[in-house]
């Protein structure tokens, strides 16, 4: 793309006393790029926030059912995933630090490591969902429909409904994140993202932090509320 090599020279505005003021253009506006992405993160927070609100509301309505349903989730696999995601946030952050300090090769390595951890996360998640499915707990199965012999109580239907919705949506964000990281590697390889111009890297690291932050709330809310229950 030819225009990226075309250097942008900011304009100068002159006031009535002859003082010169640099005009901020949309080109090369790193601060604007960061601001825009922070605002986008805010929309994600609102979206997941609404779902947490729904969850809280039903937790107050169906307290015992929620705790029982939560105790049936696999805390080991969930816990492993939490650790995996935390480490991936670390590798992502280290990658950005390396990029800033000029170590492009190290940064790429860290991005690959993050992607590997993301794939592991998805693999564990798939295993967990498969186990749930075998136990008759999955969207659309009879246990989560009302009015038949396998029907679970209302609270458990709601709990698992929200569980699959929210972890599913979170998993979708992980997949998007892997795509973004592949794109980032492509941009680094073609020299569009450099230690001086790392806004894309910064924003994707920010995105990954949010994805991991959401999990930090999802994990205790779904897995830990029933941790001490009798059925656990």
């Amino acid at each position, binding site marked *: *793309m*030819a*225009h990226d090599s*075309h250097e*942008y020279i900011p*304009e100068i*505005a*002159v*006031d*009535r006393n002859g003082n010169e*003021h*640099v*005009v*901020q*253009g*949309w*080109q090369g*506006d790193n*601060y*604007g790029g960061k*601001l*825009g992405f922070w*605002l*986008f993160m*805010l*929309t*994600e927070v*609102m*979206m*997941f*926030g*609404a*779902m947490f609100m*729904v969850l809280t*509301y*039903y937790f107050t*309505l*169906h307290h015992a059912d929620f705790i029982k349903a939560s105790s049936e989730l696999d805390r080991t696999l969930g816990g492993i995933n939490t650790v995996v995601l935390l480490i991936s946030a670390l590798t992502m952050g280290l990658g950005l630090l390396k990029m800033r300090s000029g170590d492009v090769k190290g940064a790429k390595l860290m991005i690959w490591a993050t992607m590997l951890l993301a794939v592991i996360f998805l693999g564990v998640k798939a295993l967990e969902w498969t186990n749930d499915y075998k136990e008759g707990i999955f*969207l*659309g199965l009879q246990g*989560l*429909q*009302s*009015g038949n012999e396998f029907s679970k*109580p*209302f*609270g458990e*239907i*709601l709990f698992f*409904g*929200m569980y*699959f*919705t929210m972890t599913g*949506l979170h998993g979708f964000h992980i997949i998007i994140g892997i795509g973004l990281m592949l794109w980032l590697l492509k941009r680094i390889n073609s020299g569009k993202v450099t230690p001086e111009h790392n806004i894309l890297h910064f924003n994707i690291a920010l995105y990954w932090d949010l994805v991991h932050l959401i999990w930090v709330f999802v994990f205790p809310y779904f897995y830990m509320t029933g941790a001490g229950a009798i059925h656990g």
Partner: protein
Amino acid sequence: MSKSYFDETHCAFGHPKSTFMQWMLTVDHKRIGIMYAVVMFTFFFVAVAAALTMRFELFAPGQQFIDAHTFNQAFTLHGVIMVFLFIIPGIPAVFGNIVMPLMIGAKDVSFPRLNWFTFWLYIIGCIVALSSLFNFNIADGKLVFNFADTGWTFYAPYSLNTDTNVVTALVAAFILGMASILTGLNFLVTIHRLRAPGMDFFKMPLFVWGIYATAWIQLLATPVVGITLILALLEKYFGIGIFDPSKGGDPVLFQHLFWIYSHPAVYLMILPAFGIMSEIIPAFSRREIFGYHTIALSSASIAGVGYLVWGHHLFTSGMSDTAKTIFSFLTFFVAIPTGVKFYDWVATMYKGKIVLATPMLWALGTMITFAIGGLSGVTIAMIGADIHLQDTYYTIAHFHYAMLGGVVFLFFAGIHYWFPLVFGKMYNETRAKLAFYILFIGFNLLWFPMFIAGYYGMPRRYFDYLPEFQIYHQISFWGAIIFVSGLIFMFYTLIQGIRKGKPCGVNPWNATTLEWHLPSSPPPLENHTKVPYVDFRPYEYYHGQPVVKFDENMKRID
């Protein structure tokens, strides 16, 4: 002129030769704004046609032209198009794009490629929304449509159980919501980053303030309805149980989540419209706006308080009395900043040199219609009155006085105001004024009887009615005929203006804000020749003449 950065990159990608492809791929904010306007007004007329069909049907009690089921689909179609395709993108997508960057002296929005992407996301949303319109079959020699019949609100549990095509409407609303979020995000960053040097927040034109407040609502409220629609979809197809009482869910929760967005959405519609009013009133009173700071801050406070009033849609849905009282109080509270704006506009006109050009006529007309719309809103904010008037034609009349008589009328005002800026030509003012009077009379004839019918108990969304309501429906019908004739005449006048209008120079209205100081009209690709240094307030007049003047290099020469 040497080739600039922008000349080479004004397409999202590639360097197409054909003019058509250059428009399709353009990242130029002005072209994108014009494309939005064309698409939006096309759909506007589809929705008007749906509304007119309903008016024909309601001319007499009993069945006339369409059956009850088609009637339900007609009001759903009308609502979905008007709300999601027309009025929510509305003024921000058109004038926010075309005018806002010009007003702050920017070359474009902050993310021009994102702006292009957003436009096409909007188009995809439109296609998905209307795709089910073409999913019809012919049974017993009659057309049977498969469009959603839930109303634009998609209330659970009916929307979860109906066999019609709710899924496309829900998905479309989600995609259009994303487009709306990205537009708001783009504008927020633009307003924060790209203001001309010297222009602080309190030197921005008030339309920019309106867009700014709106952008925050788009950003913060839209994700909530987005996820609600996704949850409703998952509910419909996987039965996750959230809104379905037969699985322990709570349908009232759907209403809460829906209105958490959809009530702020009406402020999202009206705030930029108020911004247009705040541009037109000083320009045609030839007087600096009265109470600039109060208007600017009232936009911000309407956006803030408007976020907390959604519960007044649920007074009859089952909510605790404490919650009702709080929501009722907060709803009254929104009327205060709105009232402040009204008094400021009236005070601006006091002792001004009022020029009754077409945009000013529209603005003044809106003062009447929106005052009725706004104040009738306060009456139904009262819990007791609302129990009586909820879901009646009274509420419908209030809504249309506020939205059609407020937002759309000011949209028309903006079209007449910025028409010479966008096209460099002037429409026939005599005809445009005539169109205003026709529309104004038709509008009041169409909607005012509904206040009375609703007060006597005519419910909304009904296919049939008792004979005693016939007179109101028939007055409304004739009002609708006049209104639609006026619409056709107005657009005819405007289109004739584009084709045959006289060139009018860069500043035909003697207005003061930066968008009227461009080197040519229509504006060139990179807007102002040079970015000015802004050390003046937006509406400075002295003895009816603009104070601030620029030379061709945007240096002040007054």
